[in-house]
């Protein structure tokens, strides 16, 4: 294979064109077209069985698309074998070679590429430093803790300087604290190496924390692609809004549309502005979302957009959740940050008014 291609430090861009993947009669991936930019931290997010891992395995070359193409920097690599692609994987269970030492694991890729031993030793040393495992090169990988094995797996995949690094839920086996620090670590490594990272996870928080862009997937299709902000604040459809964070769905009628803003009428009769996905022309009955932390509660007044009765107060330490039954019967949740110690000021069975600012409502595609 072309050695110089593997050695280049620039991250590669991945293109997926109308990809279909069937396993027998089960369709794992259904018509996915996606562009992952050079040098970005891109996350495939979705529940288990949504096809995200299959998509990753097609980039790696472990699976071949039934239809469609995988492009790397514009070149079709769909039919190349895994060892012919300048792409490395960090496996979910790490898949470290138990018969090799830490250093031998890290140097494996370069050795297979025929790199001279003196050069491999140098890179291995560099990699050990990069993942904070200096001096552990001669250890057996079986002697390492889960977090250390994780870092060896990372170093092993980074050592041959791939154009794209694929990460298949690499943090799922770690405990919470280690996971948090590894998230920071991964982000740092991505910025330092400039390699394109494609990260697969079902953990929305992980995705929001690390990613430059996220593709939310469900049942083999990509539902929405965007920055963490896009995905969270401007979800395009119900599945995305529901999968990421907690949210309120409200029925509304479109009153008018001008440019990229619409005015909708809520069930209470109040009219508010709302944003909508660019490929949508909203009309008639629509569903809008308002995030719980974007709404405020006050004593009922004519200025309130909605009105209801509190039927549950949940204290969570940093926040308090107020579950409010609206006049039309739907439940609405408001998250209040507990800025001051003590009571939130509202209790069960209080009648309250709900308000939110002009830029928080988003119309969903149905």
């Amino acid at each position: 294979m072309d050695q110089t291609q593997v050695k280049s430090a620039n991250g590669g861009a991945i293109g997926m064109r109308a990809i279909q993947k069937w396993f027998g009669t089960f369709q794992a991936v259904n018509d996915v077209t996606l562009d992952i930019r050079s040098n970005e931290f891109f996350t495939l997010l979705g529940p288990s069985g949504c096809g995200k891992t299959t998509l990753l395995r097609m980039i790696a070359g472990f699976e071949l698309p039934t239809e469609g193409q995988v492009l790397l920097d514009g070149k079709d690599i769909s039919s190349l074998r895994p060892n012919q692609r300048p792409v490395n994987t960090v496996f979910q269970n790490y898949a470290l070679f138990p018969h090799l030492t830490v250093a031998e694991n890290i140097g494996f890729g370069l050795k297979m590429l025929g790199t001279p031993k003196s050069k491999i030793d140098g890179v291995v040393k560099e990699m050990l430093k990069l993942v904070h495992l200096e001096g552990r090169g001669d250890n057996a990988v079986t002697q390492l803790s889960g977090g250390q094995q994780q870092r060896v797996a990372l170093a092993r995949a980074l050592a041959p300087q791939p154009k794209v690094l694929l990460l298949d839920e690499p943090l799922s086996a770690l405990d919470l604290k280690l996971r948090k620090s590894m998230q920071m670590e991964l982000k740092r490594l991505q910025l330092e190496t400039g390699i394109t990272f494609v990260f697969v996870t079902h953990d929305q928080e992980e995705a929001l924390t690390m990613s430059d862009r996220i593709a939310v997937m469900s049942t083999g299709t990509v539902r929405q692609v965007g920055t963490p902000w896009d995905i969270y604040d401007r979800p395009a459809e119900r599945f995305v809004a529901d999968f990421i964070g907690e949210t309120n769905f409200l029925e509304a009628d479109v009153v008018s549309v001008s440019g990229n803003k619409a005015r909708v009428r809520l069930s209470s009769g109040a009219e508010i502005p709302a944003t909508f996905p660019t490929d949508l022309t909203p009309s008639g009955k629509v569903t809008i979302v308002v995030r719980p932390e974007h709404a405020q509660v006050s004593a009922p007044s004519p200025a309130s957009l909605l009105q209801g009765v509190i039927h549950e107060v949940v204290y969570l330490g940093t926040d308090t959740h107020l579950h409010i039954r609206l006049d039309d019967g739907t439940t609405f949740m408001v998250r209040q940050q507990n800025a001051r110690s003590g009571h939130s000021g509202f209790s069960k069975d209080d009648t309250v008014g709900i308000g939110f600012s002009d830029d928080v409502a988003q119309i969903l595609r149905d």
Partner: protein
Amino acid sequence: MNGAQQAALAARKKDTRSRWLLSTPALLIIFFAAVGPLLVMLLYSFMAKGDYGDVRFGEFSLEGWTSVLFQRDIFDDTLGFADAHLSIIWRSIQLSFFTTILTLILGFPTAYFIATRPPHTREIWVFLVTIPFWTNLLIRTFAMQQVIRHEGMLNNALIWLGIIKQPLQIMYTDTANLLGMTYVYLPLMVLPLYASIEKLDFRLVEAGYDLYATRFQVLRRVVIPLVKPGLIAGSILVFIPSLGAYVIPRVLGGGKNMMLGNLIEMQFGSGRNWPLGAAMSITLMALVMVALIFYVRNASRGGTGHA
């Protein structure tokens, strides 16, 4: 020491005693079926031979042991190497070695194939591999004779295909021995290899490919090191019975291509030299021990505990 500790100690003592009691039958069997007969053999090997077989009890002699490697010149009574014995020992080692290699070459792909089938079909394949064990070894060996004899199936097929004009003389050669032993001992190679390969984590194979290894490199650098325990077990299981093979060389090798097993049988039978037979049996055991030690040392080297 409090009461609870004392009770625990007493329980442990009782446990130890009942453990010895429970292992008595096994210990008795080991003594009477293994250690005892071995001691008898050792004793016989140091006695003078009787005129019509058997040994002359109480008459110490090293003749049995010297005759393993040396023979007395019938005219001047000087010692010279027993060429016949040496060549038979050497042939046994060589044939066993090549049998091991051949079963490995044939057995590895077979085991790999079986281990990579879906779980429920694997059982069927393993079952098929064990079928030959249902048939008596002698019958299987005679079946092999039918295949390789002068007008046998192999020669007929080769002539029909036009590869050879004259039938090949395979019977009564070392090749016949080799083919026979490979056929008979192949399952002993396939089964432990299969057990090892089945346990192989195929994600490691994927990791190998991912890190730019070719198929051959994945086999050499990932698969073989990881299935080494099975490889060694299979090799031991094939090499050891090959070394002592008796029926196969008797039927397929004929009188000229004897192996150690036949030579030993001859000493107890027509040779009427029991001390020599006993000494040779112990020599064979020693050879097996050497082979075992070699394998075990090989296995422990660099074995990082992936069973």
